[in-house]
């Protein structure tokens, strides 16, 4: 979870820098990395809630 979120933070930071410098393609790449990281974190959260709710 920490590793995936680190990629999200890194992706968002690099995305902002690349966009500010006018590097559209690089910005898109970093945005995709951030989204993938965020998706993994979201999946981990959903999995955690499922684990909690399915304890019987």
């Amino acid at each position, binding site marked *: 979870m*920490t590793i995936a979120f*680190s990629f999200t*933070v*890194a992706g*968002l*930071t690099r995305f902002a820098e690349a966009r500010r410098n006018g590097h559209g393609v690089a910005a898109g790449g970093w945005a995709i990395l951030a989204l993938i990281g965020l998706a993994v974190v979201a999946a*981990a959260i959903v999995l955690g809630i499922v*684990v909690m*709710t399915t*304890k019987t």
Partner: protein
Amino acid sequence: MHSDVIFVLVVGTALAFDFTNGFHDTANVVATSISTRALPPRVAIGLASLLNFAGAFISLKVAATVGKGIVDAGSVTGHPTIVFAGLVGAIAWNVITWYYGLPSSSSHVLFGGVVGATLAAVGSGAVMSHGLLGKVVVPGLVAPLLAFVVAAIAIIAAYRIVGRLRPGPVGSGFRAGQVVSGGMLALAHGTNDAQKTMGVIGLALVAHGDISASHFQIPEWVVISAATAIALGTYAGGWRIIRTMGSRIIKMDSAQGFAAQGSGAAVILAASHVGFPLSTTHVISGGVMGAGAAKRLSAVRWGVAGNIVLAWLLTIPAAGGFGAIVYGITRAFGVNSEAGPVIVSAAILLGTALVFARRVRRGSPLTAAET
């Protein structure tokens, strides 16, 4: 149970223990978020309180474990003072460790208290040593080590990924993430810890003859009252332990705070999934130490860490000793006599009033800047 008075005292003491559990364990959930200023202290505690309340309704598996796995539920039938003495022993050790700012496990405190009182009253035959070893002792050793390693690996990887970036946006990103990871921890804490009190009240209901030991089921009113007590305790906030967890073990940055919380939540939920219950306190303390040690070994104040580990080792025998002593005191007034529990309860109420009066005189708790 022969007396409704004793039953009411047991339920009241169980809810009081639940309150101290929330109060004691607030730090597990909020200390890192407050320390890194991811959330203002009151907001962090309010959120943790709400999620602890919600978590208590999620599952009842742990409640059944307390009722059935550690001591023989059938043996306490007709001996309500055992449950009462165990709870008072647990509260006593929780208050002592809170006073010294030590994050000991409330689960171990509860198990220790109940086992000590049971040993004093019935003997070793009523204690399920296999359950105690497998469900309490082994997880207690494994939890902090596992969290230490997972958090250390996580923070090393995180520093490699974000290490060369500007610290401002990175810090903001991890602080935002801490709101989510702290929320997950609070939910997991409510799911585990409120149920322990439910399990103890379940034992009292067995002893009172309201439910059968062979058909152990927790009534709805028990779930609601336990959830409320732990949420109120969490909202009251155990600031001494928050200070220890938030800044005395390591001086943490937001990435370390996220790594400790995220790794802690992952370890607790993964262990839960395979039926291996872990102490939230042990996991988070281990995670905080791992996140600090991976950056630099000397970043961890090993003296503080040593005191915490010593408190962990003492928790079960100390709470058990208190439980046995309290059982002895109540027994002195006669087996299942109302006088013993009534006198002990009155003494607890008086002691609690004195402690809180002293705390109020000392002024307000710490702010984020002090953590």
